[in-house]
């Protein structure tokens, strides 16, 4: 338990170290999620168009 607290304490630099890692996590995850959502929307749009063309 103490080892864990010490780990998160980062020798007094907790704010700087974990802020840096937090920002990195947010930016890296956002860069994956945004293109995934875009790909899903695009595929749905293309499928809708295909259905419209089939049933005039």
């Amino acid at each position, binding site marked *: 338990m103490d080892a864990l607290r010490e780990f998160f304490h980062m020798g007094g630099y907790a704010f700087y170290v974990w802020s840096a890692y937090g*920002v990195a996590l947010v930016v890296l995850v956002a860069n994956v999620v945004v293109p995934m959502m875009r790909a899903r929307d695009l595929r749905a749009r293309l499928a809708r168009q295909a259905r419209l063309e089939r049933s005039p």
Partner: protein
Amino acid sequence: MWTFLHKLGSPRHFYRISGGMLPWLAWTTALLMAAGLYGGLVLAPPDYQQGESYRIIFIHVPSAWMSLFVYVIMAAAGAVGLVWRIKLADVMAAASAPLGASFTFLALVTGSLWGKPMWGTYWVWDARLTSELVLLFLYFGVMGLHAAIEDKRTASRAAAVLALVGVVNIPIIHYSVEWWSTLHQGPTVTKFDAPSIHLSMLVPLLLMALAFKLYYVTVLLMRARSEVLERERSSAWVRELARGT
């Protein structure tokens, strides 16, 4: 080899081949990043001068390296698109810009969070920091051109010219710590003699650098695939694909 490259250059084959590669790339990235983080945050000892604060290096340095690497790739892809009119090169250049901007942003923010406890300030207008900030604005310029110009071919051409002009900034960033006196410390790893960093820190750093590189390739392919579908939406193979789903 050439026939393979030629096939890969066609949007349809690119879409198929990249789809098969993505899961492998994503899992390798995740594994490398997990190993790098464990090595960097848990196994590596504290630095004898900087204590625990140096652990920011494991994201700061890979981000900074990638900010330069992605820019060179983006400018090179832009040049290929400009000269040989290869659609896929335009797509790669366009998809690289937001990723490069993200890495540059991360390098600046993590560097700032490292600078505060070590130098006593979040920001200083010295050569390394200022030239890296200019890099961020170059990425924003490329993204802005893509967003502002409706016609994709024109947008790609304009963005490629801007990216190529901005290449001068790359050696300036790299050598800034040697050309000008600066708060930023000199290179640790890319020196001609042995790197001045212990193996227990170097290994996780290189693992993280490799993970960031593969992360870039993974997300680049994801973005490029959507871009290809969008640009080719009226072609026969995309219609066929859309009917299938």
